[in-house]
């Protein structure tokens, strides 16, 4: 690869995602790139989050195992990872991605909401 060219992976993989209010949403576990029907340049259409996106990147048996766990945690054993679509992105640099929505509106919020509701929220003094 010629020097000076930065790939989308280098730019985005593993960056921290924050919502509109600065709340942590997760990491960019993978990215979704779509080639338009008319055959134009590939465009970034979504950031992918969660174990089903991270698993394949971890690779090997451990990665497969990680993906399988993620799949079980997804509603209806859906294999495709949670998407944060490109139109939600406000800014990104090599350190972080900022979104124009709140974490609560995103499907990445499920584990957080579940642990809050069923474990942490039931212990006195959590608020």
């Amino acid at each position: 690869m010629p020097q000076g060219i930065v790939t989308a992976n280098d730019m985005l993989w593993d960056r921290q995602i924050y919502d509109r209010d600065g709340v942590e949403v997760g990491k960019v576990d993978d990215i979704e790139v779509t080639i338009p029907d008319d055959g134009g340049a590939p465009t970034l259409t979504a950031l992918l989050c969660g174990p089903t996106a991270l698993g394949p990147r971890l690779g090997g048996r451990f990665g497969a195992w990680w993906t399988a766990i993620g799949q079980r945690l997804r509603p209806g054993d859906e294999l495709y990872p949670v998407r944060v679509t490109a139109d939600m992105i406000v800014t990104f640099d090599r350190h972080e991605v900022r979104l124009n929505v709140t974490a609560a509106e995103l499907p990445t919020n499920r584990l957080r909401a579940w642990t809050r509701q069923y474990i942490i929220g039931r212990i006195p003094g959590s608020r």
Partner: protein
Amino acid sequence: MRGALKITLGIMTAIGGFVDIGDIVTASLTGARFGMTLAWAVVLATAIMVLYGEMAGRVAAVSKRAMFDVVRERLGVRFAMVNLGANALLSLLTLAAEIGGVALVLHLVTGIHYLIWVPVVGLGVWLTIWRLPFQALETVFGLLGLCLLVFAAALVLLPTDWGSLWHEAIHPSVPAGEALPTWLFYAISLIGACLVPYQVIFFSSGGREEKWSVKDMKDARLNAVVGFPLGMVLSLSIMAAMVPVLRPDSVDVRHLGQVTLPIAQALGVLGLILTFIGFFACVFAAATESALSIGYSVAQYFGWTWGKRHKPSAAPRFHVVCLSSVIAATGFMLTSVDPITVTIITVVLAAAAIPLTYLPLLVVANDREYMGRYVNKHWQNGLATIALLVMVVVSLATPPLLFATKAGQ
């Protein structure tokens, strides 16, 4: 006074991270068996800790990122995952050893069997994580841990042969009747006890908890430069205090009570009370730190909200990880494994795992993209590279020494 309060993170990390059950056990064991001939290991480890602790603080202040954020960004998901797994397991074992350690201290004070104290301590550690503000955690434990300066006071009152202590410390050699591998095994145990990886994770995450920025760099530096050497003074005085009392009878320290003998002899009940307070503060702080550092590292790897600056309901996954760690460690101690044995195994494993945590830090501290003009200076890189070589040697030497000496017997 404000200046003094600013370095409490450093003091707490030093008190809880540096002087913890691992350090108390290894320092007293080696003091009683080898005199001051292994003091060099503590000094060497402290120098490394200052160097890398300063880097961790600087990275946290400048890049506004804690340890595992940058490890994953810079070194990739796979390496970071291996690193996370190894660190979390080691911190879990450390947490178990510290919980056992606090239970042993409470046993010495109350006479009630330590196993009864284990769940109580586990609950206390969790409650501290759950409710106590970070600042209070630092100040209370940092200051109470200073009670351990009684060991220095005891040295003055005991019939200490200062000349021979000093001579042994600056002319390290294997004492008569001891084998070289055993001596080296205890050297790496001391280094492992001083450089336990969770300290770096805790220090860098703590800097984020305190919202360090570039303007706080001086404080961050002061924290590392004052805090860790203070820890060194405490552990060297524990080591030295064993020499006049336990060494003449070549006592094999296998019990925390033996560590308090020099204090009892020199300072009586008041000294013992201070020692127990100091032990409790140090080891309890270490338990809290190791549990927090598991939560910190897992949450940072996955990009979850973390930290005590948020209410638990705002960082539920972080608190679930901390809570499960405390439960797992408490459960492990309740199987009645010997806390001192667990401690020794932990420091030895820590010695083997040191490069895993310290190498990424060195890489990041050299990255202009994160650090701008605050990247490492040439002399820092020179020293850090030498330090890293030392760590690699220690790490490679650990397994053969462990087996050759049957864990230092």
